[in-house]
């Protein structure tokens, strides 16, 4: 069994590496032939060398920490509020009647459209970036959580009624755990959106952060920094997604995968 699973893992890694290797190959040809100007896009080898150099560069690490603070700050605030309100509105029809119409008007507004208002409210520092990411995460988590809760199996609520559980207990012990699979799927989307909004906000107005670093590299024609910066953001994005998936797997380990696959 172990050897079969190892074989599958190796095969998966090989399959997953084929397309990136082709892209690197085409990239090398593009820069060698001059099709891709090296003043804008560095060839692969210097870019990879710079990628490792940046990982241990103190200045770059400070950009990384600034971005992390904004990313996780916005993600945690927006996701937790969105999930909580989604749980309440999905479960309590009476509350939904009052708040859902307004929220459903606000949710489709693209997060970037909030920037002017957020600048007025929070200035141009970290506040605007964190609040922008929060807005995006809130909308994603609110919508999916409330829809997930509405689909709860009514037999579970019947059991709660038989044992005379309070709304608080029902939300905590039944509605929330029932919704965890959809919450974690949505958290992956929210995390990906957080990276997008972080980059956008740091490129628009900032003096630090990974988005600013990439934009600054473009402005000053540091092609190797530009490509290495993008690669690092991609790698970090993958790592955060991996972390959300792992945490989600732990909290939903009770799920019957046979049913999930069906």
């Amino acid at each position, binding site marked *: 069994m172990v050897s079969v699973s190892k074989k599958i893992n190796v095969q998966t890694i090989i399959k997953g590496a084929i397309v990136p290797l082709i892209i690197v190959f085409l990239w090398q040809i593009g820069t060698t032939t001059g099709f891709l100007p090296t003043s804008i896009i560095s060839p692969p080898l210097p870019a990879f060398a710079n990628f490792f150099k940046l990982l241990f560069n103190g200045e770059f690490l400070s950009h990384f920490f600034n971005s992390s603070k904004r990313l996780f700050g916005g993600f945690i605030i927006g996701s937790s509020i969105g999930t909580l309100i989604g749980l309440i509105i999905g479960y309590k029809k009476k509350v939904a009647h009052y708040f859902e119409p307004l929220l459903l008007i606000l949710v489709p507004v693209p997060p970037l459209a909030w920037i002017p208002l957020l600048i007025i409210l929070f200035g141009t520092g970290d506040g605007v970036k964190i609040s922008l990411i929060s807005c995006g995460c809130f909308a994603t988590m609110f919508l999916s959580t409330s829809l997930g809760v509405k689909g709860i199996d009514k*037999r579970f609520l*019947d059991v709660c009624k*038989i044992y005379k559980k309070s709304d608080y207990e029902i939300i905590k*012990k039944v509605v929330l*755990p029932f919704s965890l699979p959809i919450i974690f799927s949505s958290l992956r989307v929210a995390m990906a959106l957080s990276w997008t909004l972080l980059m956008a906000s740091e490129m628009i107005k900032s003096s630090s952060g990974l988005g600013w670093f990439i934009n600054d590299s473009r402005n000053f024609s540091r092609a190797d920094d530009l490509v290495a910066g993008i690669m690092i953001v991609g790698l970090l994005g993958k790592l955060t997604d991996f972390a959300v998936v792992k945490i989600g797997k732990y909290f939903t*380990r*009770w*799920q019957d995968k046979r049913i999930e696959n069906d």
Partner: protein
Amino acid sequence: MTELLNIKVNNKNFHSKNGTIEVLSGINFSVGEGEFVSIIGQSGCGKSTLLRIISGLEKEFEGSISLHRKNNSISFIFQDLGLFPWMTVSQNLEFTNANEAEIETALKNVSLYDKKDSWIKELSGGMKQRLAVARGLINKPKILLMDEPLRELDMITKEKLQAEIKELLKKSNATTLLVTHDIEEAIYFSNRIVVLSEKPAIVKKIFSVNINTDDRYTSSFQNLKAEIKNELI
């Protein structure tokens, strides 16, 4: 036998886009304290709806459910069991507010103590049914409602579990109402069997079971089965 429960449902309708469907009508019978009453009828005749009305889960109906004693605790074993898959076996029992000692006893009674930390997905069909029974009985309810809890089991497991449940119910002394479409199951457990007609369901006939039901292959058991079957068709 002291009367514990009087069930009177004059009318219960379901409203849909296609109009109103009358599900129950003219239901009137009583259940004595400690009695086991089965409600049988064809699939979709409204048996489960009747049980939901008795439990208080269904509130919109014409009629009344009268309990002749105060502080009657009701427990319900659902058709699809309603076990929470995100809780372990013992957490499912904890949900009923039972204490640790009660949980231990309940799990030992249904031979699931060694599975107390298992997830529901790790249990077999029979184990899930036994856990649902344990949850139904853990609070020592005065009234136990069971909605076809053994429906999805194979015959051998079903008969084994029926015997186990019968033993547990003897100990608990709970007044029990069982909804089933299995005539043998109804005879095996019951003191009386209420036969419902098709929609709108009315009480067609009430059978008293005055025979030894432990052996299903006696002529008296089989005769009663045939008699009830005739009434159902």
